[in-house]
């Protein structure tokens, strides 16, 4: 290989030591930074902390369910635990996780831009996130937030006359603020992708991760304001008695569900679309093969984003929604299955005749394929009207959305984290523990949630503190699985942290990626690119050459 002419340095003129991490020093240089990479790293730390917090609540829930009857906590505590688990995971981790943390770091570099369009707004989004998280912690300290993450009325608007009221108000405020954080992030990304593409970066040269983030951003801007107004109405209902959702004042509790799911169903795609984008990158790079059906994957992202707005009523088949609306929503829901199927088949075809390496990111991608296929297919049961009536609000639903959200979003978050970690930190993580973590997450996850499908079909309702004794064995399998899953996730984070101190310096392009982020040094320089990079096909791996000396890949001249 030594005979091939290669480019040794991605961004000429930058020395190894001048990068975004060393560009300026001091805590304030981080807290007031306008650099998308630093903001991305701060998001990464913050959302990972939220994940660990949410994971702790999950383990508490699973521990309590080890036996029917009381195991370690009372009814009230259990109800708070599952509420906080759901709310923290959804609002503080999954929704911002990939777009705001990984997206912030990677998006401008992948695009070939120096920064996002509005760096100050980007920092403001981060602080809005922090503020929202603070309100959540306040809700924790008020004790008694037990509405579930969905805040269904009239339970959430009941006047309890205890700390619970303050906890609910605080949490709703928190979600309201987090909503604006999400809107501003999405807005920023949309503008960045539209206006900051360098010459040559046409729409169909954009990496699929950017298409996914773009689709996600459309949802964030269009749907999140509806959540904001819904929560605002919930607040005035609870504090002033506006009579919107409260039947005693002439309101309609089912209306709340319409409002809530108009946001929250598209929000499911906020969670899964970026994950799909990450997987497209992981599969392309690690199979060293041009992604199969690029345009179909790109279009299907946008299709999912738009169709996602038309299906919210499938959460309400048993809610008292009319027959007519249920039938219409069911029919439209099936249409979302098609673009998801296209993606799976295209990823699969990318592997055909590839050159597949089994590093940790690819193992996470494989488990994504396994888990998301199950998650997607079980969605068919829930889209089917009559079957959903049986399965709605049972553990089947719990298992289904965990397969999508955890099996989809968490595995791709961890996969993406390992994939881009050399770029983010400039350090290589150690491969073996990372692979073990992927294995543990995969096994633990399946052990946790496969039994829940069985329980669900047999009628075990969700959000139950006590349950009928015949379900106990399934719950115990599930609890064991949860601990394995937790251990896997902890090992993944430990591996990453370990590499900061002990990791080898990362080469510019350790995996052989062909998109633009791999053409700048690891970690990237402060300004990403001094001059607009030349843009080529981001899935053409022929131009890369393995370089034994650095342990990475170099660009053919």
């Amino acid at each position, binding site marked *: 290989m030594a005979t091939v002419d290669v480019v040794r340095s991605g961004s000429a003129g930058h020395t190894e030591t001048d990068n975004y991490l060393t560009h300026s020093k001091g805590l304030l240089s981080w807290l007031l930074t306008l650099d998308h990479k630093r903001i991305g790293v701060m998001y990464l730390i913050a959302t990972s902390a939220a994940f660990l917090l949410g994971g702790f609540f999950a383990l508490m829930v699973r521990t309590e369910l080890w036996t029917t009857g009381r195991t370690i906590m009372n009814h009230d505590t259990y109800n708070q635990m599952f509420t906080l688990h759901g709310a923290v995971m959804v609002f503080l981790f999954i929704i911002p996780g990939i777009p705001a943390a990984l997206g912030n770091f990677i998006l401008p570099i992948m695009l070939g831009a120096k920064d996002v*369009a509005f760096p100050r*707004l980007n920092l403001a989004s981060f602080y809005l996130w922090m503020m929202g998280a603070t309100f959540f912690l306040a809700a924790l300290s008020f004790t008694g937030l037990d509405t579930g993450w969905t805040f269904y009325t009239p339970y959430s608007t009941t006047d309890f006359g205890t700390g619970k009221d303050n906890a609910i108000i605080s949490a709703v405020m928190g979600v309201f603020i987090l909503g604006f954080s999400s809107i501003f992030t999405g807005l920023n990304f949309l503008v960045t992708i539209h206006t900051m593409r360098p010459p040559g970066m046409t729409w169909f040269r954009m990496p699929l991760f950017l298409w996914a983030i773009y689709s996600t951003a459309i949802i964030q801007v269009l749907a999140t304001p509806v959540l904001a107004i819904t929560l605002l109405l919930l607040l005035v209902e609870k504090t002033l008695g506006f009579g919107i959702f409260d039947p005693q004042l002439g309101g309609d509790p089912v209306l709340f569900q319409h409002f809530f799911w108009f946001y929250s169903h598209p929000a499911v795609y906020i969670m899964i679309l970026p994950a799909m984008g990450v997987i497209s990158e992981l599969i392309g790079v690690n199979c060293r093969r041009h992604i199969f059906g690029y345009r179909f994957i790109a279009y299907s992202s946008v299709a999912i984003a738009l169709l996602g707005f038309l299906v919210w009523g499938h959460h309400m088949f048993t809610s008292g929604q009319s027959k007519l609306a249920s039938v219409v929503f069911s029919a439209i829901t099936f249409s979302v299955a098609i673009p998801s199927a296209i993606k799976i088949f295209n990823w699969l075809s990318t592997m055909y005749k590839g050159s597949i390496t089994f590093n940790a990111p690819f193992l996470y991608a494989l488990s994504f394929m396994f888990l998301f296929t199950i998650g997607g297919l079980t969605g068919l049961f829930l889209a089917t009207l009559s079957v959903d009536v049986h399965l709605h609000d049972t553990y089947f639903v719990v298992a289904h959305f965990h397969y999508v959200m955890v099996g989809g979003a968490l595995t791709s978050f961890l996969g993406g984290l390992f994939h881009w970690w050399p770029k983010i930190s400039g350090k290589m993580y150690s491969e073996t523990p990372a692979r073990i973590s992927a294995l543990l997450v995969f096994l633990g996850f399946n052990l946790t949630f496969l039994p829940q499908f069985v329980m669900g079909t047999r009628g075990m309702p969700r959000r139950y503190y006590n349950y009928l004794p015949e379900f106990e064995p399934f719950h115990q399998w599930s609890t064991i699985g949860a601990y394995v899953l937790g251990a896997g996730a902890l090992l993944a984070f430990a591996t990453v942290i370990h590499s900061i101190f002990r990791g080898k310096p990362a080469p510019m392009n350790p995996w052989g990626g062909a998109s633009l982020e791999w053409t700048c040094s690891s970690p990237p320089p402060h300004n990403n690119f001094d001059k607009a990079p030349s843009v080529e096909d981001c899935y053409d791996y022929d131009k890369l050459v393995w370089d034994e000396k650095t342990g990475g890949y170099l660009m053919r001249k």
Partner: protein
Amino acid sequence: MSEHAVADPHTGHDGHQGHNPFHAHHFDTPKQQFDAGKFGMWLFLVQEVLFFSGLFVFYAIVRVNHPEIFRWGHQALDPFYGFVNTIVLIFSSLTMAWAVRCAQKGQRTGLIVNLVITLVCAGVFLCVKYVEYSAKFEHGFLWAGRFNPHTEDHAGDHSATEGTTSHDSGHADASHAASAEGHGGHAHGPVGPPPKNAGVFFSIYFGMTGLHAIHVIAGIAAITWILVRSVRGDFGPDYFGPVDYVGLYWHLVDLVWIYLFPMLYLIE
């Protein structure tokens, strides 16, 4: 809510800096920066429209299912106030659009004058809202949870709820003024007993106009900020993005009111 990006103090210098102090380092040209800001502002407006949509849905549902609530409730609102506020807002929209033009042409005085007029209009709008709100509070025309219309009234003020004396409503001065405008001094006290859940009308009224008023207040803050920068002389033909963006926001506030006015004050 400034969606524009200004120079990054931490930035090292690059080739593009120099000819415009407000040109941010990560944009190649001022045009790119302006377009990015404008696109961002439009997206923000999209977000605003959907933010308001929840209340419009609520309105539509109550309106279609319980028209009697509206037939009764809208009589408590004085169209004269709504009319005055409509004209005030439309006029402020005109001055705001004019301000943008002045900024584009580099006419600093015109820009400042137009912005001041816009601010004054916003202030007048809020004052009228205050007068309206206090009348509603006085008569107990509040949202569903606090809806408690008084038929007995404060000294010297005729009840707005006494339907039979509707030609002599509590807002006598307003009615006269309305006649002066040429729209007949009709009374605005609801006729007849309130229908079931009549308070929902006032939930909608306070919800919609309240959220709108919050946007007006935010607009005042944004315009004040623009005004300060105009006095400082920041804007000219090369750089007027912020004026344009705030203008767009202000027009959206006007736009929402254009719908709210007939929906709440006029339609039976």
